[in-house]
């Protein structure tokens, strides 16, 4: 019996990893879009109905990391649910503030990566704003490539480093 649970756990982990971090070649159209101020580019596709459907909760959502594709700051479709949950939490806890910490993988210029991290954090803030969370309650901070989550020098580490972390430690 234990073997089956173990197998299920491994499969579940694999499935989660696969859905969160697809191997995608850089889409030239996506790159061009970000060059023209596409903080809102990812927001017009797909439904936003999920946010309203979530029950308001007093518990900070457990999933606090949103991942991004290389050199872009668009909110990926498969990441929206994470932000939707935080939008619901913040709408139901009007005194709560959050800080969105943007990160980039290590490749290329450190200062450009600071700006990329900032743009990712701003994209997440814009998304929350559309959900009804006023931007005055949302701070942004970029760490660029300075605080990687994964220390390796390959795609599997880099995709874990392209992220925004949703932090509530500023609240009492």
């Amino acid at each position, binding site marked *: 019996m234990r073997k089956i649970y173990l197998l299920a756990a491994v499969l579940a982990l694999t499935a989660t990893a696969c859905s969160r971090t697809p191997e995608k070649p850089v889409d*030239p159209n996506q*790159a*061009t879009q*970000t*060059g*023209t*101020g596409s903080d809102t580019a990812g927001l017009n596709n797909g439904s936003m109905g999920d946010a309203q459907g979530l029950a308001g909760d007093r518990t900070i959502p457990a999933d606090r990391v949103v991942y991004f594709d290389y*050199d872009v700051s668009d909110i990926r479709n498969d990441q929206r649910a994470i932000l939707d949950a935080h939008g619901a939490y913040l709408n139901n806890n009007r005194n709560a503030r959050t*800080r969105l910490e943007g990160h980039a993988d*290590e*490749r*290329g*210029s*450190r*200062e*450009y990566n*600071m*700006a*990329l991290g*900032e*743009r990712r954090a*701003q994209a997440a803030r814009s998304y929350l704003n559309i959900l009804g969370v006023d931007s005055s309650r949302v701070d*942004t*901070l*970029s*760490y*660029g490539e*300075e*605080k990687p989550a994964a*220390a390796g*020098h390959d795609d599997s580490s880099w995709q874990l480093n392209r992220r925004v972390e949703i932090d509530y430690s500023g609240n009492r």
Partner: protein
Amino acid sequence: MRHILFSLLGWLMLTAPAQAILTIDITQGVEGALPIAIVPFAWQATSAPPADSVSEIVSNDLARSGRFAPLPTQSLPQQPTEIGQIDFNTWRTVDSRYLVIGGVQPAGGGYVVRFQLFDVLRGEQIIGYSLPVESSALRRTAHRISDLIYEALTGEPGAFDSRIAYITAQGRGKSAVYRLQIADTDGAGGKTIVTSKEPLLSPTWSPDGARLAYVSLEGKRSAIYVQDIASGQRSQVAAWPGLNGAPAWSPDGSRLALSLSKDGNSEIYLLNLGNRNLQRLTQNPAIDTEPSWAPDGQSLVFTSDRGGQPQIYRMGLGGGTPQRLTYSGSYNASASFSPDASKLVMLNGNGGAYRIAVLDLVTNQTTVLTNTSMDESPSFAPNGSMVIYAVGRDLAAVSVDGRVRQRLAVEAGAEVREPAWSPRNR
């Protein structure tokens, strides 16, 4: 004999010595590096000699440039310390046309350092100096002598009498420590300028070499500081909401170009350090960052992804549409001018490899200088002939013609990044 008076004020306050010490190895020298005989200098006193050997520092400097091959001390046929002791016939049998002799003696609270460079073939002195110096300036005098010899024999200014600034990072997470440090170009004399538990970035020297501007993420926000090296005093000059980054000194030291995201996204601004007036230069939804001044102070180059991926653009301070400069590779960033304004050094990305490249602004030719693949942060030496940069956890340097390569390693444990080569010491 010419006399030069150096008045060296306390240009470096002794703060806590740095834990990390740089050691520099030549990994590739110039074929046909010039043989040169440097005889150990005389110590002309009965008291104990100073810890720093001037002739050894000079010998290491010249060797490290990759363009000179100092003879081993044990192969020197004689060890003269005065001109009258030199037997030129003997030296003509040795494979070195050039000979350096000298001596150090105590004087007042400091020293007098003298040296002479000879052309052995002609039996003539090329240059000779007698330098009175404060005791704290002995190392720096040795580097100054290296510059004089280098320039006399190559026709080009040396860059030995200058410094490098760099960031070290040790530990991870809650135990992470970041330091901004400076050192001589041979890695000695390391001093910590700033210590922080949060990242430090983008150190940059003021044109007079007396201050450093840098980005600090202390206090969970980004801010730009200007710090006086001698006194350790610093002031916060930019702490707007959002990103404050990429400071760059104007050639006259009165302004910083920098990148701020306070108006929606990363744009380039000019900050007057005197009256704190802020002027916005770019207006574009793209990321605009990493401004760098042309030596004449009339234009800037900067990194922008307005065309998709980061590329280098140039814009005049008087306004006008920025012009794209880079068309080689898919990613270009971190550009800065050579001191003579003829070239840009930059980070060039191509097929997943990030390398240091030089763009000749006259011929429009791009030359890739390195063959590693995760390089970043290139910085020109003040003589324009060497570029220092970061690769992996270390620093490295390469000559602009690609013939000389050096690896600079730090004592175990620390990662070194973001080197900035100072202007020539004053």
